[in-house]
């Protein structure tokens, strides 16, 4: 087991290093993408701060609390982009025949497809987000260690849930050789996680908790830190992530079993 983990660690490091080198080769392009990502982060954060120059609370949340929701969304979103970036090119990987090579390599094809591309730019962008999270923590009243642990655990749980979504998209690419836009639907719908789920009307809130669990990914960790998430919801969150991963892996295996090579 340990040897296996070491092997995958080595593969990840090697492919991550290659991805970083590629991005550093295209300096102007990478700078543009990096600046764009920073603009998106800074403008939205400035918007939240500017809003609180005019109001005390939004949906009952203070500035620090609203910022916490926004930053948690960014943490989960960026972690997913750093770790699962390969899915963005899943359809191309299949249609150009690279997936055939993945299948004959002594490594999980799912790992190769989902995890072996690292967006170095998000690795850079996540640093200011972590700093801002630290600043928000400092502005919150003193909270027990348990709350911070719950926040960390549910944030990791959210990344696991996002992993399941990415596996599903990769499986769709293998099964249909299409669905390139499926990942972009996820990204667009994730936009709704920028704000606490409480701002939405009841039916939308329900949908974001049970049907498209954006709330579980972005709102629940922050609520756990603020002490307003019941243990039952935390348990639901963990169970949902476990079920989503199990189902997505099953769908992936089924898709690979049906795969008949599509490139040549």
């Amino acid at each position, binding site marked *: 087991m340990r040897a296996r983990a070491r092997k995958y660690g080595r593969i990840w490091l090697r492919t991550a290093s290659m991805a970083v080198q590629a991005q550093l080769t295209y300096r102007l392009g990478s700078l543009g993408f990096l600046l764009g990502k920073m603009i998106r982060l800074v403008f939205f954060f400035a918007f939240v701060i*500017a809003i609180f120059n005019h109001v005390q609370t939004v949906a009952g949340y203070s500035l620090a609390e609203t910022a916490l929701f926004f930053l948690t969304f960014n943490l989960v979103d960026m972690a997913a982009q750093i770790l699962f970036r390969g899915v963005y090119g899943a359809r191309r990987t299949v249609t150009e025949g690279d997936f055939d090579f993945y299948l004959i390599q002594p490594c999980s094809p799912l790992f190769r497809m989902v995890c072996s591309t690292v967006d170095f730019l998000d690795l850079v962008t996540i640093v200011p987000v972590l700093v801002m999270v630290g600043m928000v923590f400092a502005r919150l009243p003193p909270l027990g260690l348990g709350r911070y642990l719950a926040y960390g655990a549910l944030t990791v749980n959210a990344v696991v849930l996002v992993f399941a979504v990415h596996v599903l998209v990769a499986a769709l690419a293998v099964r249909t050789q299409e669905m390139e836009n499926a990942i972009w639907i996820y990204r667009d719908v994730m936009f709704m996680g920028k704000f606490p789920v409480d*701002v939405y009307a009841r039916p*939308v809130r329900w949908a974001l908790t049970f049907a498209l669990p954006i709330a579980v990914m972005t709102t629940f960790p922050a609520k756990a830190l603020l002490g307003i998430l019941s243990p039952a919801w935390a348990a639901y969150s963990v169970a949902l992530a476990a079920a989503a991963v199990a189902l997505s892996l099953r769908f992936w295996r089924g898709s690979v079993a049906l795969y008949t090579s599509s490139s040549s």
Partner: protein
Amino acid sequence: MKKYLVAYSIALQETLQRRSTLLMDRVGGFAVVLSLYSFWSALLGDKPSFLGYTRAEMMSYVLLINVLRAFVFTGRGWQTVSEISSGRISSYLVRPLSYHGYSLALDLAQKTVHVVSSFVEVAVLAWFVRGGVFLPRDPAAWLLFALSAALASLLFFFMEFMVSSLAFWTSESGGPLFCFDLFLQFAAGAFFPLDVLPAAVRRLLSATPFPYMVYVPVRVLLEKVSHAEAARLIAVEAAWLAAFALAAVALWRRGVRSYAAEGG
């Protein structure tokens, strides 16, 4: 002119044929507008007005964002970059047509479909808006809005064309285009009214063409400016358009002169 109409007609059919892509694009747009609507709705609560906007006006602003995003920000920048970088543009350069005119025809076809879809989405959301939306009774406000929005759409077309033209000199123009698109959307007021920002930032932005893309047309429709002021703003917008159109054409000509048909 006839050849551009034919290009428009074919592009319209192509856009309608790719129903899943269109649906996914619209789902993304709808998610953004639903998020913003919910956020502003929660923020307004029972307040009669915020930043000088009544509840109905603010809701109209949010809904108009969806329409103007479809009408102004639907562009072909990424395709242009791809066509130049891959050398596919060669086949257009030898044809007896203007690439700008051809692009504009294709752009209009996309806009037609997206604007119609956005109207349907806005109509559905408007149905649920508590307190109604603001619709001006004065026909002049509608006319001025239509004129301002049309100029905004052309302004975006030429600005994006300029940034895309960088592909003649570098294969990395995707980064600057990404950065430009994101900055533009924030600076144009396509996520929130610029009134939220501090006065100094607003003054700075008002000296740029960006607010004329969304913020100005919406304020004209919401009758936040007098007819005389609206006419002045539209004249400034037209001047920006003329400047960017001339610059984009000049840059394109220089680009074509230095074009080496790489990959073509």
